[in-house]
């Protein structure tokens, strides 16, 4: 083999890696919480209304901010609502942009957290039998430690990040209330089909709610930062059709959140299993987006109205 050629390939890969990771982390670290673009944009400061930011992963993406804002406008609620859901978001990722969020002076932050984010994949020793039967698992096991930090740096969909960046540079800031490229309407899949297709394998997926879990550390840090800046926080558990953790773990999770709620004084709502009986699901993890699935958005609006009143008192 010609090492000059291999070196050239290596150089191409290295340059790609550098540019790719720089652009991705630049985006993660400096995106504007109202998603007006990559860089800070002061146009939001001119809005006379107080701002509510919804944070969370794709599990909160289907909350329709247009609906919420229309409702607020009709009922003279002097707030503007922004859905800042980000693909594969978790406290550990969100912590990187929290100062940016705070700098945009939201009055209220409502944060939908996903029970699944607090799972730990227990890394059991892999047996010889397992290696022989499933060599792929052996590969995953061997490279897990190497891949984890890389995965943390790479977003769920690099394509969406790249497109947002490109759009920003080509067309400048584009005011809208949804962070993803488009707010597509998605169809409902029958729940029995989704349950049938779901391969439940949560043997190795236990919850870790100890202070050693980085997600917990980040969540507490986010709460502290918001408190320090007098931003009101509402926490809720994001709805899913199927949870990949056991019922006892979920109960423990609820208890833990209630403890935080008392300790840090913020309201918490449990929506994780609220809609499991309803035909509103796009897949086992996401509520579909269409007129028949507005219940999620409506509930969110009710929660906000209730808490706006409570905060006023």
């Amino acid at each position, binding site marked *: *083999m010609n090492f000059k050629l291999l070196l050239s*390939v290596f*150089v191409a890969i290295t340059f*790609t890696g550098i540019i790719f990771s720089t652009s991705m982390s630049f985006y993660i670290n400096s995106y504007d919480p109202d998603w007006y673009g990559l860089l800070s944009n002061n146009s939001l400061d001119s809005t006379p209304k107080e701002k509510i930011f919804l944070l969370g992963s794709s599990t909160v993406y289907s909350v329709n901010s247009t609906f919420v804002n229309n409702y607020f406008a009709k009922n003279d609620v002097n707030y503007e609502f922004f859905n800042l859901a980000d693909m594969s978001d978790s406290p550990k990722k969100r912590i990187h942009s929290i100062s940016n969020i705070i700098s945009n002076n939201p009055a209220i932050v409502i944060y939908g957290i996903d029970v699944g984010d607090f799972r730990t994949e227990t890394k059991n020793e892999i047996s010889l039998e397992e290696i022989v039967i499933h060599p792929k698992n052996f590969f995953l096991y061997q490279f897990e430690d190497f891949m984890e930090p890389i995965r943390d740096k790479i977003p769920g*969909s690099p394509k969406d990040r790249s497109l947002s960046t490109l759009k920003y540079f080509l067309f400048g800031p584009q005011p809208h209330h949804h962070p993803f490229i*488009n707010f597509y309407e998605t169809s409902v899949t029958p729940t029995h089909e989704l349950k049938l297709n779901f391969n439940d394998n949560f043997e190795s997926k236990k919850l870790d709610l100890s202070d050693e879990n980085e997600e917990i550390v980040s969540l507490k840090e986010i709460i502290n930062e918001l408190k320090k800046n007098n931003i009101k926080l509402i926490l809720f558990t994001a709805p899913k059709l199927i949870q990949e953790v056991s019922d006892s773990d979920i109960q423990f999770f609820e208890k833990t959140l209630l403890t935080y709620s008392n300790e840090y004084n913020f309201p918490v709502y449990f929506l994780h299993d609220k809609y499991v009986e309803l035909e509103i699901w796009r897949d086992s993890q996401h509520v579909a987006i269409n007129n028949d699935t507005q219940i999620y958005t409506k509930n969110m609006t009710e929660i906000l109205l209730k808490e706006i009143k409570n905060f006023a008192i």
Partner: protein
Amino acid sequence: MLFNSLDFLVFFFVILCIISFFKFRRFQHLFLIFSSLFFLYYTDNYLVTLLIFTILLHFYVGREIYNSQTIIRKKIFFVIGLIGSIGVLGFFKYTDFVISQLNVFGTIIDLNSEIPLLNLALPIGISFYTFQSMSYIIDIYRGSLKPSKTLKEYAFFVAFFPPLVAGPILRASEFLPQLREKISQNEVSQKLKLFVITNTNLKFGITLMSIGFFKKMFFSDNIGPIVNNIFSNPLGLESFSIMIGTIAFGIQLYCDFSGYSDIAIGAAAILGFKIPLNFNKPFFASSPSDFWTRWHISLSTWVRDYLYYPLVFKNRKSEGLVFISLIISMLLMGIWHGASWNFLIWGGIHGLFLACYTILRKKFPTASSNKFFKSKIGKISSILVTQYLIFFTFIAFWMKDFDHMVYAMKKYVLLDFSTVGTIEIIRDNELPILLMILFMILHFISYKKGNIAERISKLKIHYWTSILFVFFLSIATFYVGSAREFIYFQF
């Protein structure tokens, strides 16, 4: 093991290193055979035994056919070989389809019981390695090929990992001589060669593999969403929306499958094997028969050589026989893709197009030398009409739901000229639309410029590195987030 996964890159890199450092002929051959079996085992687990069975069966049957002294003995072994290969393929691929059709028939005649489906897992690559093995024994039976001297050599040919799971379908007559040591320019010995990775092969192989990854991960994976949006529920959509869906699917399928082929051909090239092209700018085909010399070439030539030619062999002048033979050949091509009515319909339509074209050519033999068809406008018109027909068939390739298929086909043929919904679809799918346009531009350039991979691989090292960098960066920044399976893996 998906080509577009880290697993494969590590696997291939390790193979290259070991082949480069251990220059012992026997070791290299055995190592590559076992690596190939491992490659399939990694993806398909115990179903690798089917590949081993196919290798053993065809090796011994091939030898027996060759050594048979009587025609009857020759025929018996030939039939054993065919039953073995068609039996395994048929059992795993078509049993449930046959059972479900019997159940439908049972319902029609009011039988109150159903045969339960077997729900068999389809072994990956079975359609490809079965056809490869069948061509081996057919060639020996016809006397156009001498069988492999050793099981090692034959196992290498069938199990060779780059084209194993999705082609191109290799021919022993082309591959085996490459495996043997060269004596002179045109002569090879029976001894298997030592693998040496040359600079030219390495550079060309890496270039072709990069182009393959680029086609798959940049184009196909990013165009896929618009196809799903349009084709998953086409009812109520406008004609132009359906057309956008078909064009998008045609491009997605091409980039997906030719991307895989490029990676396979590139990987094989690095190891010193020349695998023939599987695609050759199919969207510039100017007639249905021209299309089949450009699309999935290894399968279309297989069907031509082993099914169509024998069918029309006795009477080429009979239009009826040519017509029926073409329809049968294309139906086989369709059902080869999967046990489903939509593939049969797809094959049937292609058969109809080919048959009509062949008969028209026979009726009007001087038409192709007509001034109009030789002019630029004539050529462009031929290409456009051919592509209109070809893209029409992609509807049947995608849609399994019969109502959806009929609706989409009607809309494709009988234009409604509405644009409101289409504009909305374009607005919601800016990226796929832009990529489709970009693809067409690049496809046109590669049509005009010839073998792009070869041209790139002959560039000076710094230009070559820069082009690789552009490919890699495009793939990384437009990565959809998870490795998507190649469409042809399911066949």
